[in-house]
């Protein structure tokens, strides 16, 4: 609930609401802790007279019976699974009954022909699917070709050595990105058309207008310069796309799109191509044969500058990916620690930590979108900059120190 409020109403509203509801939240948290820790306490009590080995054995056995995520391995597995893309959209799972609540997504494969079927056929990785005489199996959210029994052979590196078909499936991440695209199209179209009849926008457009102007006037204009208008469209798209996806990662939907290196790679690739194709003569000149530098130095610097072309978008890719992945891991680890410790102190403490980190993550969600946009604008600005070839070293009026 708090993430939704913060998403739509901003941090201030959240903080205000938090102040009013802090008692309620605390009480709710206490209740939760009580309900979680009660079995643990009684169980501890039972185990005291028994020897150590028996206790651990009984503990694991009892936990298996309960079926909740109790051990560290299970928490780790859960986090790993959350960070990955998935072929079905699961909101939550009941480990006790093995039921998954969510909906399946279509699977589209190209393997000597187009093959389309629903991911519900895999039964969350339990079953082998036969499509046009070829057998497929889901293993750690990836599809492998197998034989009829669904055997997976492991290579020397410990990873499956089975062949993989070309996977064009509408996965969880793809679906989220499509939904965000549609949402952005509707929102910004209504914003744009509202200017036809009136000077100020209506409804949600009033939230978007200052942000659009902010990106235009504070990111694009000072960093790109004269011909900034051409690039505002790309910068706005990237900014809102990343921001909305980052915020969606904070909701209980459990999507981790910007924390997927393929997604950030594609975004960085867009920046890369735009920078290279809008680069003018001066840009290439400053890379391969920079003026005002001695010739031996030019030969040494050219490869470094050439490498710089690729390092810039690469750093964009890594920064966004690493920040979002780190945020997700921190939040889920803190929540996981509640389940690992299962006592009165750890419950409220890690609950509080999680709220604290969540607020920071809200800031990071904006900051990463801002930085990606800002650095893209900066790189574009470097490429389209008009140099007047006025170098202090060439100018005799300024003494060279």
């Amino acid at each position, binding site marked *: 609930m708090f993430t939704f409020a913060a998403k739509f109403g901003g941090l201030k509203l959240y903080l205000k609401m938090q102040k009013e509801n802090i008692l309620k939240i605390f009480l709710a948290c206490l209740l939760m802790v009580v309900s979680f820790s009660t079995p643990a306490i009684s169980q501890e009590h039972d185990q005291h007279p028994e020897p150590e080995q028996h206790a651990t054995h009984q503990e694991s056995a009892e936990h298996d019976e309960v079926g909740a995520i109790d051990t560290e391995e299970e928490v780790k597995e859960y986090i790993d699974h959350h960070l990955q893309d998935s072929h079905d959209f699961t909101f939550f799972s009941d480990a006790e009954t093995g039921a998954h609540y969510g909906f399946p997504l279509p699977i589209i494969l190209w393997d000597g022909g187009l093959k389309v079927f629903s991911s519900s056929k895999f039964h969350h990785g339990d079953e082998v699917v036969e499509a046009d005489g070829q057998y497929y199996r889901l293993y750690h959210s990836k599809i492998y070709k197998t034989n009829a029994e669904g055997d997976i052979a492991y290579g020397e590196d410990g990873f499956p050595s089975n062949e993989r078909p070309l996977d064009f499936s509408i996965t969880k991440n793809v679906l989220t990105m499509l939904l965000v695209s549609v949402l952005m199209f509707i929102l910004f179209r209504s914003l744009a058309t509202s200017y036809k009849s009136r000077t100020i926008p209506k409804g949600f457009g009033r939230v978007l207008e200052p942000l659009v102007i902010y990106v235009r006037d504070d990111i694009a204009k000072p960093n790109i310069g004269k011909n900034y208008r051409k690039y505002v469209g790309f910068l706005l798209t990237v900014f809102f796309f990343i921001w909305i996806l980052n915020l969606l990662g904070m909701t209980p939907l459990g999507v981790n799109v910007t924390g997927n290196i393929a997604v950030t790679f594609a975004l960085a690739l867009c920046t890369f191509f735009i920078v290279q194709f809008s680069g003018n003569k001066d840009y290439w000149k400053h890379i391969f044969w920079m003026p005002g530098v001695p010739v031996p130095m030019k030969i040494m610097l050219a490869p470094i500058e050439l490498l710089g072309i690729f390092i810039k978008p690469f750093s964009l890719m890594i920064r966004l990916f690493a920040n979002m992945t780190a945020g997700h891991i921190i939040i889920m680890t803190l929540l996981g620690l509640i389940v690992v410790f299962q006592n009165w102190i750890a419950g409220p403490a890690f609950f509080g930590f999680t709220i604290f980190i969540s607020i920071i993550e809200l800031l990071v969600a904006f900051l990463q979108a801002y930085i990606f946009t*800002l650095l893209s604008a900066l790189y574009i600005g470097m490429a389209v900059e008009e140099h007047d070839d006025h170098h202090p070293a060439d100018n005799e009026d300024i003494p060279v120190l």
Partner: protein
Amino acid sequence: MEALDLSMIGAGIIILGAGWGLGKIGSSAMEGIARQPEAAGKIQTAMIIIAALLEGVAFAALFAA
């Protein structure tokens, strides 16, 4: 005896350095803003760019480890 894996320690050292650098950036920016409050916006933008670049180094270290 298998060789001791020092890559995480190396990453730790790099992150210490990055943290120190971020502190330097923050303190210098604060000083700059205090001296010249009207330039706060420009200083802030420059600060964030440098911080982002530094962060890139720290993450590169984390991934290399």
